[in-house]
């Protein structure tokens, strides 16, 4: 009981601190000379645009029940039926001529920030797949008994981890991209996957090495070859153990993808910059962008936690 009330107390302290921080930010935002225009933001995420539907022929408009507009043609064409619309511009029994506006339909349009989010998601998913493949092979090469494979892998890992991602992106785009004639997206994906692959390789290596050698021996003694033993015995166990560091790496990948905006890929960050220049509301935009990144990383982290739970059945 004593313990319980203490825990409750500390939870209350946490909530108070968060409220305090929130108030601090609010007070800070009041104290500066800045007009907040949050209402400008949503249209850059999603907006509606009205399009007008016009009559294709001369005829008579009738409104049937269930809010259905039917235009019967004077010349025996098939009647025009419009079931869904947002604004009605004619009344029942009106005569209409070809080209007259009949109704307005509102279309949902995806705004630039959402397009940026989609691009970031595409970049991250594609890079993730390649990074996992590269990392898996580099990690296996790293613990191979073959010195050529091992040294190649070590060289790769050290080169990549020893240089900034931003520099790598420039090299991939301006040098390798020019030599191999890569487009922006490919160059960006290549840089991100090669970069993340080096970190995944180390995670894979330590994951495999954390499995007791007895597992490999047992598998081999049952007649499995090296690949079968790896695929069926070692990697599934290593996979489970490496999930938490992998999750961290995947989240880093999503965040790192913001750096490719320097080679003019319109990802979420670049979209944010463009929206700032058209709204003059930088604070709101960057808060919105941060929130959108959080949605991505939060969803990923949640999905991996679910997976971890499911895999813990054998513990």
């Amino acid at each position, binding site marked *: 009981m004593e313990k319980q009330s203490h825990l409750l107390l500390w939870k209350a302290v946490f909530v108070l601190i968060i409220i305090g921080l929130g108030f601090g930010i609010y007070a800070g935002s009041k104290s500066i000379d800045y007009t907040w225009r949050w209402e400008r933001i949503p249209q850059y995420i999603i907006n509606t645009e009205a399009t007008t539907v016009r009559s294709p022929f001369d005829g008579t408009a009738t409104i049937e029940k269930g809010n259905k507009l039917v235009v019967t043609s004077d010349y025996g064409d098939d009647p025009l039926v419009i079931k869904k619309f947002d604004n009605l511009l004619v009344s029942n029994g009106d005569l209409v001529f070809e080209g007259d506006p009949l109704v307005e339909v509102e279309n949902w349009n995806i705004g630039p920030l959402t397009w940026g989010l989609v691009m970031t998601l595409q970049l991250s998913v594609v890079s993730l797949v390649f990074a996992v493949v590269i990392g898996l092979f580099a990690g296996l090469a790293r613990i191979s008994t073959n010195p050529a494979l091992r040294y190649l892998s070590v060289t790769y890992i050290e080169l990549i981890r020893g240089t900034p991602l931003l520099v790598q992106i420039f090299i991939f785009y301006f040098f390798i991209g020019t030599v191999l004639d890569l487009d922006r997206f490919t160059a960006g994906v290549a840089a991100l996957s090669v970069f993340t692959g080096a970190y995944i390789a180390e995670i894979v290596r330590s994951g495999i090495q954390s499995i*007791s050698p*007895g597992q490999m021996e*047992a598998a081999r003694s049952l007649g*499995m*070859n090296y690949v079968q033993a790896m695929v069926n015995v070692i990697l599934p166990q290593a996979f*489970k153990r490496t999930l938490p560091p992998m999750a961290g790496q995947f989240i880093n990948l999503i965040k790192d993808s913001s750096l490719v905006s320097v080679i003019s890929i319109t990802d979420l960050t670049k979209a944010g910059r463009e929206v700032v220049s058209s709204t003059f509301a930088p604070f709101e935009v960057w808060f919105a962008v941060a929130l959108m990144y959080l949605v991505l990383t939060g969803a990923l982290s949640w999905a991996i936690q679910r997976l971890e739970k499911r895999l813990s059945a054998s513990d």
Partner: protein
Amino acid sequence: MTNMTDKSIIQARNIEKIYPNGCHALKNVSLDINRGEVVVIIGPSGSGKSTFLRTLNQLETISDGTIHIDEVSLTDRKTNINKVREEVGMVFQSFNLFPHKTALGNVALSPIKVKKKPRTVAEQEGRELLKKVGLAERMNNYPSHLSGGQQQRVAIARALAMHPKIMLFDEPTSALDPEMVGEVLDVMKSLASDGMTMVVVTHEMGFAREVADRVVFMEEGELVFEESPERFFSSDNPRLQRFLGQVL
């Protein structure tokens, strides 16, 4: 040394094993084992018992000498060692069950992946084997939910699922609580009476007396002495006496 007869299924001749760190673990060890024979190897810690056993399925390569399993040379570069290992089951001191698979999953894995048996067939055979080792009720348990003795019996069933001609046991009961030793030895005894060729490293002298056809004594990498159990335990070989004096 026993004569080489056409009955011997294992022929190990003049084996030397020097580990990369320079440790000379086996010194001119020769041993022939006949089909259906149960050979128990005893000896002090570090005498090379495990090393010798592991050379028989090439978990350790040898530095010199020859090994034939069922007339297939293990030192021949053309030999597919995976095929040999299908014929030679091994049971480890630390069980080494696959923790991500259920008992049945452990037993069925290799028949499915190596022998390419359909899953339903492999699982049916797996259930039979688990029944045979007394684990009909525990088939869907993960190893972490099994006692040591149960885990070791699953490990035996897993090795048997490949229908081996030879079974190697490396101190199969040493990691077990005393009350669980019996259930594992019982499974091994019934296997022996089914005519399985077995090589067993163990400190269970009772098992050696009761089940073995031959007992081998190793010390400091050498095969010192081999005899039938009756003669073995009544021998006055001084090195053996010293060892038996310590363990009994």
